């Protein structure tokens, strides 16, 4: 069982009180506990079980405008006392920073509606095993030589407290299952996957769906070709298209803006996407994978329309960087919540047919995003699509461009679904360069 609210509150209050006694002018503390149980299968047999019990505390102390922090997984009272003393000593010798402070009191969040983020249902390891048997049974198709699948259940609870009287937290749960299949043909081996991840047990996808999709996607990738280097229209599968939103989020975080290290600095109220594009960040989706009642500082997070008809409307602002930029926190310390593109108006099928030849990307590898310049270059695998029909798999190529151009050349399909915390429909991008042969 995860620790209850009383235990977490007691520990958090102990930290805040002791910090004050030792000379902190203000402080904040978070205490978290999570228990997670995972079972993994391989080739229809039990491979691994893993039980993870994680307790942790973090404390930030301020003396005027000086700040320092500690964190620990050892919550024995002696250890906590030593650490808080150390934290205060460190705070004293750390130089002042005029922007250091707790969030404004009147911005702090309280639960106003129930987001239903916790499911008390427990699924035993034996039941997980039954689910995984079905997953792997449906994954073992002709050509598949290896399957690995896993089922994970996590229950978490946390409390966030600060010396202005904030003391709030909530339980959450997560259930996830995945299957990775490997297929072989001649000397070529390929791998692909499918997964489900939900807040509530009964929202999970059916096991045979996970297994058969993983197998199907893997077999489709066999015997890929390398194509010529060329400029060509590219479609991002929904697995990849959400990455464009993650890049946007990284580039509009108040920290990158304040440091001047973002290609979107000073672009508020400017057009960065085409007219048809709208982007939302909505923290209060019921059972949403990115939902939360308040951000990591306790600030209430309201829904934001980050991009309105192509125009950038907000940065993601936390207290510290907000003060630097002379802006109020909008509850985005720790990043976005449920971030998504509003769906487009064209169907998936029509998007495939929009050009005679299109490269459909299902996976990218590498870390080729530069948020200072906007340059983007990653390895990719996918399929060549001709007149709306998938012709053959493609691999060992790279795709490259600059986010400033990419953002302006996006067409979205109408197939938005909420499978991750950040979600985007299938996406067509014009004008990127493919490097191949």
């Amino acid at each position, binding site marked *: 069982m995860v620790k209850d609210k009383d235990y977490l509150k007691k520990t958090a209050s102990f930290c805040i009180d002791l910090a004050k006694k030792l000379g902190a002018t203000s402080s904040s503390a978070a205490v978290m506990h999570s228990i997670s149980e995972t079972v993994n299968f391989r080739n229809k047999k039990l491979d691994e079980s893993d039980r993870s019990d994680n307790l942790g505390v973090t404390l930030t102390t301020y003396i005027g405008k000086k700040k320092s922090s500690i964190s620990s997984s050892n919550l024995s009272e002696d250890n906590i006392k030593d650490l808080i003393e150390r934290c205060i000593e460190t705070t004293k010798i750390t130089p002042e920073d005029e922007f250091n402070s707790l969030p404004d009191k009147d911005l702090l969040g309280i639960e106003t509606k129930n987001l239903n983020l916790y499911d008390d249902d427990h699924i035993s390891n034996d039941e997980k095993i039954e689910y995984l048997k079905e997953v792997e049974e449906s994954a073992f198709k002709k050509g598949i030589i290896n399957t690995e699948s896993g089922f994970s259940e996590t229950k978490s609870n946390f409390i966030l407290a600060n010396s202005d009287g904030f003391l709030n937290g909530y339980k959450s749960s997560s259930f996830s299952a995945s299957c990775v299949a490997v297929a072989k043909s001649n000397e070529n081996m390929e791998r692909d996957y499918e997964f489900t991840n939900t807040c509530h047990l009964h929202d999970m996808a059916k096991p045979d769906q996970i297994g058969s999709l993983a197998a199907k996607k893997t077999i489709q990738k066999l015997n890929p070709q390398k194509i010529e280097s060329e400029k060509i229209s590219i479609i991002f599968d929904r697995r990849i298209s959400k990455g464009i939103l993650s890049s946007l989020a990284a580039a509009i975080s108040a920290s990158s803006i304040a440091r001047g290290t973002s290609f979107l600095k000073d672009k508020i109220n400017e057009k960065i996407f085409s007219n048809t594009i709208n982007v939302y960040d909505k923290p209060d989706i019921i059972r949403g994978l990115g939902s939360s009642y308040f951000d990591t500082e306790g600030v209430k997070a309201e829904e934001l329309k980050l991009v309105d008809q192509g125009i950038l409307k907000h940065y993601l602002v936390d207290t510290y960087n907000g003060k630097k930029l002379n802006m109020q926190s909008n509850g985005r310390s720790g990043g976005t919540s449920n971030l998504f593109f509003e769906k487009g108006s064209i169907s998936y099928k029509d998007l495939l047919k929009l050009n005679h030849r299109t490269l459909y990307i299902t996976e990218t590898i590498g870390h*080729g995003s530069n948020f200072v310049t906007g340059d983007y*270059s990653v390895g990719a695998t996918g399929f060549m699509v001709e007149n709306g029909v998938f012709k053959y798999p493609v691999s060992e190529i790279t795709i*490259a461009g600059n986010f400033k151009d990419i953002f302006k050349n996006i067409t979205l399909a109408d197939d938005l679904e909420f499978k991750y915390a950040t979600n985007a429909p299938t996406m067509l991008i014009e004008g990127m360069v493919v490097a191949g042969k």
Partner: protein
Amino acid sequence: MTDFFNKTDLSRKDAENIVSNTLNNCDDGELYLENSKSESIILDDDRIKSSSYRSDLGYGLRAITGEVVAYSHSNEISKNSLKQSADNLKSTLKSKKGTYNNSISKTNEKFYNNINPIEKKSLNSKLELLKEVNNYVRSKGAIVQQVTASFAGEHKAIEIIRSGGEVLTDARPLIRFNVSVMLEKNGKKETGVYGIGGRQSYDEYLKNDNWKKVCDEAFRIASVNLDSKPAPAGEMKVVLGPGWPAILIHEAIGHGLEGDFNRKKTSAFHNLMGQKVASEGVTIVDDGTLHQRRGSLTIDDEGTPTEKTILIENGILKNFMQDRLNARLMNTRSTGSGRRESYKHVVLPRMRNTMMLNGKYSQEEMIRSVDKGIFAVSFGGGQVDITSGKFVFNCTEAYEIINGKIGSSIKGATLIGDGPSILKEVSLVGNNMMLDPGIGTCGKAGQGIPVGVAQPSILIDKMTVGGTQL
């Protein structure tokens, strides 16, 4: 040495009994205890942005029978908690029966006695030095727009208790000093990053104003990139510089030679043992015993002493990297490559310091031999798909080569290749082997661990460069 049984109701005797009891009918397993302390100080945007300290304590109890691994970890070192973990393991392995192998190899001499980078240098002197770093870099001119500098230090004490009461311990210091510089000229912004580190005290790295060299290097890389032009796209010859570019070896070859992927036959190398997988003259080793490198450890995280493992010798595949589990199932021995990020993670076969050894050519000869290609001096991150063998990495400093001469610098290109075939495309191996500066972190299955790489310059006959210029 950390006493894990101080201040708990769990005595060493209790722990040993629970371990022996749990592992009796298993093939392998252990209790792994860890106490780590880490400190991080970051200067950014002209001020100390954060100073933080972390102390972490916990255990992981592991039982293995056949191919099945049962693992349970917690931060609560207590009788109750350990018993609960033991019950959890027993329920997973209830129908299995194994034979515990008590023998464990004789251990290395301890590498890192008495080095504690956190306590040894005072916080005040670290804060002062970061301010000096900031002033030094900013004094290079108005084009310096942003400076970030950081110290990260860690001290980790581990103890392994095996069934039958055998105990192995190790202490592992690790530090890193990093500088990132952003320059702006004519509206164009570019970043340069450089860092150094390893398993020594800070003083060893920072003496003789060594820190200035780190700053100079970060500034130089950013300056080079300010004058860069877009990278070409397509297949061409690539010369890799010595040292850090060996992450190509790490990604393209190293991961594919880890025992687990080969036991599961999901690595492109699994059926190539004893066969020619690289050009003649290519020898690659993975060495966990090098002096004070990031990947160097007295023992691995299962208690096996680390060693120098020959992976590829003169083009022929000789060994995979093994932990105890995969070695047992593949009928071979552990190479001391069983590693984990922390007590929260299961052991996997991992790399330590992966190195391509010297050949006989000079870098100049290589560049002279190229009509059209690129010279890649440094990289950011890389990634590999073990199954298909495809890998990528991103250049952070690269130049075009035209008619045997180094030309303009090019920006942000990604290189992509195929692991099993790339080593056959290596046509010249240089004589200038260099270790990386001590900055590598390798990710696998969500676990990040410190590693090292080394290589001389090499010429690759054909690789795809992922630029934007057709």
